[in-house]
């Protein structure tokens, strides 16, 4: 077994573009679900909007890259408003239903045959990230700590921008959640009627949380599109949202570092287990499964791990035991 390969792939996944994308998606969910208690099951839709905004603006219409970024942020805000206005006055589960449907609508629209001239249908779009990589300050070559970590200069640029976005978003949220604004959000998560009776415009705060979480999700979409230099509609199916929830719960909801560490750990473990099993099968250490079955078994093990986590440590890695135990009283 090639242990260097196993560790190298696992560590690279733990700090790679996947970890960034899911960290951003989970940070957005953290604002909505972790702090405000809004069940947004359509985070994949916000990522899709971010990714497609860049792709369509540049590849289809030939407009500047940064205009695409601006359009992506604007559309994420609009999408949040559109979802929130009818549903935020209703009970929380309505938002869950509407968001999951809205994300699917976004995916089905961009993959539709009728609009394939604009969105590229199921093949998606390519050739839009040139302007982004033109800004790359890293000269061509290999970077990292051999033999474990090694990225080429394009990946380095994505990782730099991606982790910078993660850091900026987390810092802003850290400041916001410490402020009286964050206190109102946490109170809404507990009991919105109580907050209303204290003279706070609950609807407005929930909308703000939805918008901020959606915009952070769209940042994840930007990185998704740029790291692959391509977008395909089926990358933004509901799995993405549920993985992001997994990441959030693993790290600990309502904690600033929760989604970041959760995402890194999730990808590290996922790749470690996957590559580990593949290597074990290839070297003959495991004989009762084939390489083709590794992918499914890996997901089963992740599911098992999550169940154990939720049973024995529901607050995740960073959560506060006291906050949980009060509810279970």
């Amino acid at each position, binding site marked *: 077994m090639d242990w260097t390969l196993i560790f190298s792939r696992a560590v690279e996944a733990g700090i790679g573009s996947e970890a960034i994308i899911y960290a951003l998606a989970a940070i957005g969910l953290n604002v909505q679900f972790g702090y405000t208690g809004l069940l947004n099951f359509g985070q994949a839709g916000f990522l899709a909007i971010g990714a497609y905004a860049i792709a369509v603006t540049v590849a289809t219409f030939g407009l500047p890259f940064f205009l695409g970024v601006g359009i992506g942020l604007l559309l994420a805000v609009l999408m949040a408003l559109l979802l929130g206005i009818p549903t935020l006055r209703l009970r929380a589960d309505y938002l869950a239903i509407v968001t999951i449907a809205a994300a699917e609508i976004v995916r089905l629209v961009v993959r539709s045959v009728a609009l394939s001239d604009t969105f590229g249908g199921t093949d998606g779009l390519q050739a839009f990230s040139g302007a982004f990589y033109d800004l790359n300050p890293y000269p061509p070559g290999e970077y990292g700590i051999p033999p474990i970590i090694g990225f080429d200069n394009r990946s380095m640029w994505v990782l730099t921008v991606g982790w910078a976005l993660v850091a900026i978003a987390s810092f*802003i949220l850290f*400041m*916001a959640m*410490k*402020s*009286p*604004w*964050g*206190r*109102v959000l*946490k*109170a809404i*998560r*507990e*009991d919105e*009627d*109580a*907050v*209303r*009776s*204290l*003279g*706070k*415009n*609950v609807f407005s705060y929930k909308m*703000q949380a939805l918008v*901020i979480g959606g915009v952070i999700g769209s940042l994840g979409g930007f990185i998704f599109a740029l790291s692959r230099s391509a977008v395909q509609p089926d990358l933004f199916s509901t799995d993405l949202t549920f993985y992001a929830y997994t990441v959030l719960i693993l790290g600990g909801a309502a904690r600033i570092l929760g989604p970041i560490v959760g995402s890194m750990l999730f990808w590290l473990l996922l790749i470690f287990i996957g590559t580990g099993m593949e290597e074990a099968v290839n070297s003959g250490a495991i004989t009762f499964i084939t390489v083709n079955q590794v992918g499914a078994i890996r997901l089963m093990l992740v599911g098992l791990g999550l169940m154990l986590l939720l049973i024995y440590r529901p607050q995740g890695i960073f959560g506060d035991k*006291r*906050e949980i135990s*009060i*509810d279970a*009283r």
Partner: protein
Amino acid sequence: MHAESLPAGKAAALKAFEGMAAEPGVPKPDPILVVDNVVRRFGGLTAVNVNHVEIQRGSITALIGPNGAGKTTFFNQLTGFDTADEGQWTFNGRNMNGVSAYKVARQGMVRTFQLTKALSKLTVIENMRLGAQSQKGENFFRGLIPGLWRGQEDEITAKAEDLLQRFKLDAKRDDFAGSLSGGQRKLLEMARALMGDPQLVMLDEPMAGVNPALTQSLLGHVKNLRELGMSVLFVEHDMDMVRDISDWVIVMAQGEVIAEGPPDSVMSDERVVDAYLGAHHDAPLSAEEEERQLHEAEAELDKESTE
């Protein structure tokens, strides 16, 4: 009890109610809240149908009635937590129908809930701070710059600590509200409501689920609100409490205000007795009545035996 031993607020309230007709909808000299024709229907059921009622400023008014009389629904209409089908009401002369709950609270009409809504995963002091109005840091962008709200936060905290001390919760300052007892949560909820400097405090069953040892302290706090110049309207089932602290009692039954009056006399009002016990009750109303019925029965028996 001597008149001069009464606290100023109580004396003033009693003076205002002196000689007032004990009739539903009687006008008050200085009403803080005036309600007209409020109707709320749930399908075919008319839960609330209040023609006219006024709440006197600076008094403690009790709202009583049998179960299902519509008291809590009426409360929800007034505070914007539910929308009335018809009618209007004014608070301090300002029209309040259709005004959303948070705006009602901002105008100075703050409520508590029958099932206490302490925010259990926030600490006691955070609960209190949340009650403060117009904290600048509650705006997202201003919240990001601590310098803009720190000063105000310190003032709010000082005020909160003051109130916690009054409500004897200062030892619990940094505990999660979820760890408090039922009575302490009621105290916290009331203290939190006071952070917003309300003019009218609406308490929905403040004594429900409170351990008797805390009842006296809670009563004292409610009375104190009146001394501090606030008006109180509360829903309660405990008649001893109603008699003890209220200056005026409004009785609801089947969604309507059926009687009003001072606490000592309103309970013997025929309409109130009917509402609580049913109109065709056989139970004697008083000792004299009981005696009279007994005499009648005896007379009848005598008549039968002589025949």
